[in-house]
């Protein structure tokens, strides 16, 4: 069926539901990712799907795309029950998915990428002319001009995004799913994407648009479905909502109250960040963290929090600004210098950056401060064993022995090993990036308690977290970032609504 024909058909029944997902549940060990989710998409609408990290949006879309299967529930297309067991099934049902991670082959041309998998061919040879004609037609549909003979590797990110969409459109989908397409786009590119999406909708294609940027939802979408904790909270027309109303639906859960005591008066400024920036990802940021203080750094994914932390620690180079610890300047671009200056960094990804999984717990704990335990480069074994045992006791690391590989520990205990590493270097400034991600509730409490202990001993703690109850419950002060800039500061007692409003680009 070609696009025009489809448009006419759609025009005939404007509110026809083309996709219905009914009673979908999905359980992962330890987590109910989706609980009895109902979700409908009408023909020719842009339907925004929003929710906090972990709300279940991506799981739902993975089920729709056939990447995973739901435990229970039914999917109907045009009121017909269908089974989707693989991405091929989804494709043949007219569902096209544009993933967050691009799947273009860098060495192939735009044309070849668009027709990858079903090259027009003649006598076994790829028909270049036909390939490019086809690709040009798809790109024209999108109203964009990209040289179809250019290699994908030479394209800008925005162009890659558009080619990715063209590639999916070449399969003639009736339903297009975009998972945070705007995460990599800015300004004019975003405008162009919106224009394209609007045009596709007007042609009768339904679009599911997952986004963290609420302003986009209001600009683009016809209806919005809000998910929270694996459930659908609400589906309603965007016109019946305002920013605050949407935020309330996204976060509206009971506050858990303070997770640790906020006690003690913080001391003097210890960590001073002045105008630290990194071209393209981080606007100049200035902040202070005092001794004895836990400061939260809230914001959406991609707001620049991790980038800021990595610049402070020297994991990434910075384009400007200064970092000082207790008045001493920390040279940029070298984790070694940062560590010597008393900074410790608990990375977001424990398994690939925080720990060396096949090395022992002992070797991981002492790695960053091995010199303190060495005489003439020889590691003093007995001193090392003593030190590690003391730290493991203090943090109550549950491991068969300090000699077991760090990778054999549970998430919570792995994180304690990371903390032990920075206790060993006697870090005065501790930066933690999503320190409780992937950790069960009990271990989370322990991590919070340890953070407070470390702060009480006079350290300055800066915690990045996307879990708002955690930020509110643990931190003495909350900084909020949005699109690479620091946009606000909130005191103890801030609400989730206040944080989300700032984090989504709103004003208090």
């Amino acid at each position, binding site marked *: 069926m070609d696009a025009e024909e489809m448009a006419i058909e759609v025009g005939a029944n404007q509110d026809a539901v083309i996709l219905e997902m009914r009673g979908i549940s999905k359980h992962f060990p330890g987590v109910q990712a989706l609980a009895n989710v109902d979700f409908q998409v009408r023909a020719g609408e842009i339907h925004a799907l929003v929710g906090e990290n972990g709300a279940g949006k991506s799981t739902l879309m993975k089920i729709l795309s056939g990447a995973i299967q739901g435990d229970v529930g039914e999917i109907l297309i045009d009121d017909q029950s269908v089974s989707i067991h693989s991405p091929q099934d989804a494709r043949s049902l007219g569902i096209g998915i544009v993933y967050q991670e691009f799947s273009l082959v860098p060495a192939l041309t735009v044309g070849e990428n668009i027709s990858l998998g079903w090259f027009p061919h003649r006598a076994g040879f790829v028909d270049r002319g036909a390939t490019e004609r086809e690709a040009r037609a798809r790109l024209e549909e999108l109203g964009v001009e990209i040289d179809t003979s250019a290699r994908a590797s030479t394209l800008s990110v925005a162009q890659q995004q558009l080619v990715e969409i063209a590639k999916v459109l070449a399969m003639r989908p009736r339903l297009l799913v975009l998972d945070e397409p705007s995460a990599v786009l800015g300004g004019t590119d975003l405008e162009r994407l919106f224009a394209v999406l609007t045009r596709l909708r007007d042609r009768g294609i339904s679009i599911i648009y997952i986004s963290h940027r609420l302003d986009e939802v209001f600009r683009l979408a016809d209806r919005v479905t809000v998910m929270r904790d694996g459930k659908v909270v609400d589906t309603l027309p965007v016109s019946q909502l305002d920013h605050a109303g949407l935020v309330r639906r996204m976060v509206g859960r009971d506050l858990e109250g303070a997770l640790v005591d906020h006690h003690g008066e913080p001391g003097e400024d210890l960590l001073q960040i002045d105008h630290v920036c990194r071209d393209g990802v981080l606007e100049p940021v200035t902040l202070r963290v005092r001794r004895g203080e836990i400061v939260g750094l809230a914001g959406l994914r991609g707001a620049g929090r991790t980038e800021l932390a990595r610049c402070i620690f020297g994991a990434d180079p910075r384009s400007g600004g200064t970092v000082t610890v207790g008045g001493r300047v920390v040279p940029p671009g070298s984790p070694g210098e940062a560590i010597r200056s008393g900074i410790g960094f608990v990375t977001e990804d424990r398994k690939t950056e925080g720990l060396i999984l096949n090395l022992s717990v002992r070797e991981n704990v002492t790695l960053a401060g091995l010199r303190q335990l060495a005489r003439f480069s020889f590691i003093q074994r007995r001193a090392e064993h003593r030190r590690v045992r003391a730290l493991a006791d203090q943090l109550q690391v549950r491991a068969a022995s300090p000699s077991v590989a760090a*990778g054999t520990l549970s998430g919570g205990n792995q994180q304690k090993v990371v903390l032990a590493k920075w206790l060993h270097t006697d870090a005065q400034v501790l930066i933690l990036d999503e320190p409780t991600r992937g950790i069960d509730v009990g271990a989370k409490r322990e991590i919070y308690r340890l953070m407070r202990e470390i702060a009480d001993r006079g350290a300055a703690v800066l915690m990045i977290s996307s879990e708002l109850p955690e930020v509110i419950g643990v931190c003495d002060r909350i900084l909020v970032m949005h699109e690479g800039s620091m946009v606000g500061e909130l005191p103890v007692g801030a609400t989730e609504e206040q944080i989300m409003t700032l984090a989504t680009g709103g004003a208090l």
Partner: protein
Amino acid sequence: MNAPRLGIASSVDTPRVGGIRGVLGGTGGALQKAGIGLALIVLILLASVMSPYFLQAGNLLNVARQVSIIGIVAVGMTFVILTGGIDLSVGSILGLVAVVAAQQLQNGVGALLVVAIALLLGTALGLANGLGITIGGIPPFIMTLGMLVMARGAALTYAEGQPVSLGDAKERFSWLGRGDIAGIPVPVFIFAIVAVVGIVVLRFTTFGRYIYAIGSNREAARLAGVKVRAYTAFVYVISGFLAGLTALIWISRLTVGEPTAGTGIELDAIAVVVIGGTSLFGGEGGIGGTVIGAMIVGVLANVLNLLGVSPFTQQIVTGALIVLAVLLGRIRR
């Protein structure tokens, strides 16, 4: 997003399972080492049964001498492979150092000075590899492949394609390759010293710990403040230095520096390291395994020789051994 939730799912607190796996994980390396040690013992037993000559002192010393040349190179290779790298240039560095040292000896330069020149030249070429890889960002395979071709070309150019005789120095430079200490060949002593120093460095020093950290997870090591580039470069320096040392033994033994000396020794060394249980991906293994690996290869070649198996067939056996060693290592894991 839900990906992190999958993370939760896979890391739910299960200390007991962790404990069991921990025990297995902790002894996996030891098991592997015990495995190849056992293989060596079985091989020696078989050899002594199959050939009456095998256990004769003269033959054993011969095996040891042959093993030591490849073994010294393989110790350097172990350092490199533990970081996740590879050094294809050791054979060519050996060849270049061999002709340069032989020419200097022929010119009448003092033996000690020649030793210094040779070691310095090997070290410098290793440093060039290391800097190309760390500062230049060239993959180790490519950088050392380039060096392999360049150094061999340099050796052939320098020697004009001809073997370089040691001339009158033949006798005064015989100790390294042909001498003995209390009946044990000097090359065997040198190999033993190199291996012991290597084992001590890897097991007991900060540098050794950093090597394993870098080979296991470069990024995590960097974020723990380890000077990844400096240490990575340094393993190639070690490898180059040991290739230079081997070149001296080589010319002393053969009394001539051939520009083709050491051709293909890099592959033998890699084979020995792999048979010894060191992972080509880095971070796992050690020099103890490499020493055993060198002995396995040496003993095998020797017994096949004694049994009159043709050198061509021997290659088939050695090749199969490499594949088998890695296969067994995988199965055990």
